[in-house]
């Protein structure tokens, strides 16, 4: 594994950086599409109801626009995702306020506005379910027969019995709210009908083949009649995993009915009000602990608010439950997890995918246990931390690559945590108005799909020589800012011994690239990268074999190293030169590799036991904050992060992922606050839903640790979601340390912090009396 690499591990700049810095990169809304109309959406406006009638105001000249309702859907009225419960257009039931009821296309935005204003609805309102509490209580049945969309349990040992051996039992309930992605480029898709009756759908997306499946089902088209092509994507974070299937289908329906290209680009308001968010959660922990801090038993109950339809809830929930005990070993565990329906917009994929919620709960709970035991949170963590050979509650045991302790030790060294924890407490006594705090958290993230997911999708990647001097990487994995186009090209360049400039990532287009799976789950570098590497090896083997058949090299055996085919001392043929000589055998100049199951892992979906993930990445965070006790303002000042991610293919991009993901987690912890009223989001502008600016951002120190994973390309593991999983509890712990409070939920807004301090004051007064 310790092979020397040239491109992999280097600090080469990303391949798309300059074009982006110069403003020449074209995103969907920058493209001119000949004869294109614009599309818009008519929405329900009530949380639950039954549509009696959709009315068209005849004072508007309807020959100027095209209206699509559920009746116009040629295929099934569903947006196909993991479960077909989400109608493309409400008919007749309405299940959340921003649900699409009808679609309109018009030649220009002004006409579209007029047309949208000329549609009204007669809806019989039904009593909605707006909270998870009401959903579980079944005040109304709005989904299935119990409102529970999915339920899992994980059991190891005998938790009930083990509680008896504990010295004390610590309980806590932790809550997290919605989080909005705020990719800077809003959602946008366009559909372009072609003369041969096929349809091209382009746009900002993470999963071209997901959109493809949704179109096939919704339009009733055969697969080859639909082409999906990704356009440059200005951020996704999971928000463009599920939603482009909806928007793509909407644009397609309008394009088919109008017979013209139709583009739908949400403005920020529509994007904030209508697209998916991170699932809110309520997580209850009950833990049996020995006096010395040893965890002996745990009961955990996880509830996620799924919103009105499943989207990704089933798999989000799965990740929540599998990460419920975080980086700690607990011998007896019983976890129950449910995703329940409410009449609110469906919640969907968001970087971390259920882990930020469960990791927040376990990390906060560790802090609570430490507080009750009078231990430093660090010592409690050290005592129970997972090590090589420890088992997870679902039975997985890894003999190597359990790096929680490695990253914890590194972050302690970098941050001076122990010393500062003491020092800040001292300083705060001298300056009670501006207090400092420091907090710690750990996190882990299983890379790739859960269980047998990678075997199930069995993704493949291709490489091909094109134009005589380039190698193209053909995958459905998209570049959305995270650096896939650079990292996959680096893996190919390294494997082929070429320089990075000779390799390009082909635009993901379902009519050209194989299905390497969706761009999700921290799987692109680790799994797709591996198949790219395998495809490159296969390409070289094919070329070497065929070269021996060429007259000039008859019978020679070529080896390949550092970009050169060699047969003895004399015949040294560079890669592209050889490609030229083999040009008459075009089949030779491309190769495909499919995912090969990694031996030694097994997963039982029916019992939810086994090897949930083949490798985990690990992270430890220390955050320093200042809390202004006059205004209850929180200012993150320093963030120290150590992450173990296997081989860092591009250390620059890897640290960029960690910084960006951490900041997203910090925003989640104290700033980002989706308002809700009667089932609708109320935060409609970026001056209401606030994400961190430069001035809300700490200075970062990032440390990468590399424990190679034998199944990944050059030892790489998944990384993208890891920092989002784990930053929030460290920040909240730091706020608690500074202000002397214990927040149980996020975001820790000024109001919340103020209410905690008031409660403290009241309790102190009551204690004095």
């Amino acid at each position: 594994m310790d092979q020397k690499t040239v491109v992999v591990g280097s600090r080469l700049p990303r391949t798309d950086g300059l074009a982006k810095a110069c403003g020449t990169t074209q995103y969907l809304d920058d493209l001119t599409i000949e004869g294109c109309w614009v599309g818009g959406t008519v929405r329900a406006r009530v949380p639950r109801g039954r549509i009696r009638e959709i009315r068209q105001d005849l004072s508007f000249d309807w020959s100027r626009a095209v209206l699509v309702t559920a009746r116009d859907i040629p295929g099934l009225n569903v947006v196909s995702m993991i479960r077909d419960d989400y109608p493309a257009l409400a008919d007749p039931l309405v299940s959340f306020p921003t649900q699409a009821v009808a679609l309109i296309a018009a030649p220009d935005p002004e006409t579209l506005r007029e047309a949208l204003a000329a549609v009204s609805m007669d809806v019989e309102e039904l009593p909605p379910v707006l909270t998870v509490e009401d959903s579980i209580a079944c005040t109304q049945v709005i989904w299935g027969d119990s409102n529970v969309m999915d339920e899992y349990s994980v059991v190891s040992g005998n938790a009930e019995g083990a509680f008896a051996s504990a010295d004390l039992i610590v309980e806590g309930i932790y809550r997290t709210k919605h989080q909005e992605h705020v990719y800077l480029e809003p959602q946008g898709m366009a559909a372009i009908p072609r003369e041969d009756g096929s349809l091209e759908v382009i746009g900002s997306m993470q999963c071209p083949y997901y959109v493809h499946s949704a179109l096939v089902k919704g339009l009733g088209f055969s697969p080859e009649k639909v082409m999906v092509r990704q356009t440059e994507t200005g951020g996704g974070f999971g928000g463009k995993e599920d939603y482009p299937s909806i928007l793509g289908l909407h644009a397609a329906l309008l394009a088919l009915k109008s017979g013209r290209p139709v583009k739908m680009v949400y403005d920020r308001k529509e994007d904030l009000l209508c697209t998916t968010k991170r699932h809110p959660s309520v997580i209850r922990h009950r833990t049996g602990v020995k006096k010395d801090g040893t965890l002996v038993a745990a009961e955990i109950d996880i509830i996620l608010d799924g919103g009105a339809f499943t989207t990704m809830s089933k798999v989000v929930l799965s990740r929540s439950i599998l990460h419920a005990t975080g980086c700690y070993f607990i011998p007896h565990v019983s976890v129950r997890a449910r995703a329940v329906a409410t009449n609110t917009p469906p919640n969907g994929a968001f970087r971390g995918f259920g882990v930020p919620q469960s990791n927040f709960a376990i990390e906060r709970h560790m802090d609570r246990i430490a507080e009750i035991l009078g231990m430093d949170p660090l010592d409690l963590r050290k005592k129970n931390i997972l090590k090589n050979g420890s088992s997870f509650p679902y039975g997985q045991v890894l003999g190597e690559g359990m790096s929680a302790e490695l990253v914890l030790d590194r972050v302690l060294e970098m941050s001076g945590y122990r010393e500062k924890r003491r020092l800040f407490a001292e300083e705060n006594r001298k300056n009670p108005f501006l207090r400092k705090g420091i907090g710690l958290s750990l996190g882990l993230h299983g890379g790739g799909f859960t269980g047998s997911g990678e075997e199930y999708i069995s993704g493949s990647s291709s490489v091909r020589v094109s134009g005589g001097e380039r190698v193209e990487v053909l995958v459905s994995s998209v570049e959305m800012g995270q650096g896939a186009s650079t990292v996959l090209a680096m893996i190919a360049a390294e494997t082929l011994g070429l320089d990075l400039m000779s390799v390009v990532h082909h635009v993901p287009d379902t009519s050209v690239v194989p299905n390497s799976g969706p761009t999700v789950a921290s799987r692109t570098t680790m799994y797709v990268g591996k198949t790219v590497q395998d495809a490159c090896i296969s390409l070289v083997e094919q070329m070497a074999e065929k070269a021996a058949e060429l007259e000039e090299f008859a019978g020679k055996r070529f080896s390949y190293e550092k970009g050169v085919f060699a047969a003895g001392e004399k015949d040294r043929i560079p890669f592209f030169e050889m490609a030229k000589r083999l040009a008459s055998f075009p089949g030779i100049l491309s190769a495909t590799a499919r995912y090969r199951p990694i031996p030694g892992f097994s997963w039982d979906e029916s019992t939810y036991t086994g090897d949930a993930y083949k490798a985990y990445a690990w992270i430890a965070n220390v955050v320093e904050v200042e809390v202004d006790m006059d205004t209850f303002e929180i200012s993150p000042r320093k963030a120290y992060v150590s992450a173990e991610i296997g081989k860092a293919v591009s250390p620059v991009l890897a640290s960029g992922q960690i910084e960006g993901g951490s900041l997203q987690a910090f925003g989640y912890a104290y700033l980002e606050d989706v308002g809700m009223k009667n089932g609708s989001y109320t935060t409609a502008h970026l001056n209401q839903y606030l994400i961190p600016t430069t001035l809300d951002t700490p200075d970062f120190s990032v440390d990468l640790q590399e424990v190679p994973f034998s199944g990944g390309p050059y030892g790489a593991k998944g990384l993208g979601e890891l920092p989002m999983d784990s930053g929030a509890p460290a920040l909240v712990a730091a706020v608690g340390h500074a202000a002397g409070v214990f927040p149980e939920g996020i975001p820790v807004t000024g109001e919340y912090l103020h209410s905690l301090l008031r409660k403290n004051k009241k309790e102190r007064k009551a204690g004095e009396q």
Partner: protein
Amino acid sequence: MKITCVINGTFRVLDARPLDRLLDILRSMGLSGAKEGCGEGECGACAVLLDGELVNSCMIPAMQVHGRTVLTAEGLGSPENPDLLQRAYAEEGAVQCGFCIPGMVMASRALLARDPHPDRTVIRTGLAGNLCRCTGYEKIIRAVEKAAGMGYGEGIPPFAGPVCDYPPEFSEEERKSFFQPSSIAEAIEIRAEYGDEITFLAGTTDFYPDLKNDKVEVKKVLDLSRVEELRAITRKDGELFVGACASDSMIMEHPEVLSLFPALARAAELSGARAVQNRATLGGNLASASGAADLPVPLLVLGASVILRSVRGERRVPMEEFFAGYRKTVMKQDEILRGVSLPLPRGSLRQAFFKRGSRAALTLSRISVACSAVLEEGTLKDVRIAAGSMSAFPVRLPETEGYLSGKKLSCVLANEAADRASREINPRTSGEFRKTVTGNLVRKFLLSLSPKEELNGR
């Protein structure tokens, strides 16, 4: 209308509608580096330089682009021939999805033009109006540091002056509805003629969000941006006069505002990020009569008067009497806001402005407090306190002021004043939180007036 301007070094005469956004003009020309991330000045993805100053192009009307110089990311360099700053962005890993980057690069250039060797705080402040969701900003800051280290800021030429000296050419139809006078005299004539049909344009930082959200109906437009006399900040006859079209940037950087009225300078500094501050005007902040407006709060404690001008003459309205209700002022339908007058303070006047937003930058006030007082031999005099964002418009706290005036300053007094200030205000929402913070800020001001040791001694 026809407008003459220079875009990325090329002289152009463009056909446009007067309220077309500069963003759309650029994009329709194929300059799609400027992006629409929000259309409301909240993200900075559309940022460009206008006459060398950072602006959000989603909030610039075509009629204000005439005679001016526009620079976009495409004007700095190309992928084949990038400029030093763009190269630093690519090399430092400051680019991820790239959507915010053209705007971010322009904000970086603007800050380096002002300060070629900034520290991290200056860089952060200069970029605070440009949201990035990918990078965590760390590498962006490093890219700016790298470009600064290579002398990028020193190589930026100063603004060369207007492109032309003639006014823009409106069509006959437009001339009936769009007015762009160059003097106050002309402006008040137009105002007198059309009264409440008039929508004023100046910095347009509220206008475009309102337009987008259907909060404004445009009939006649009176654009004050070419009235040079409205932009002046001058000291005369024991007063400092700040013109209605003075921008937040001008106010927060003006030496006399800084030395005489630091609370006002601070309010301007906290009012938004650079691209907004370069545009938002004092007059707009007052006339919009928003409960969350920042500038009226210090003006209330600094004894300012609002100067209103009409064809009937000029009148002065004390700041306290200027607001008439939610989103209402006492301005008559033939008046324009000429500016505010601030009496020069006594040398020993202490003043402060505090703002509690929901994040550190580019945020609406949730609570704002301005205080001023004179401390003579430990005794408080002329105490004035104002609070914003609590009610329909900013208000003074006369009971707390009265309680404090003439008293010896002490920790006990400061705590009591905090309690009284909390009780005196009546916030519409988040009551307990806002009351506590307001009280705390009054106490903070009082405690800042004397060294800690002295106060503890009392």
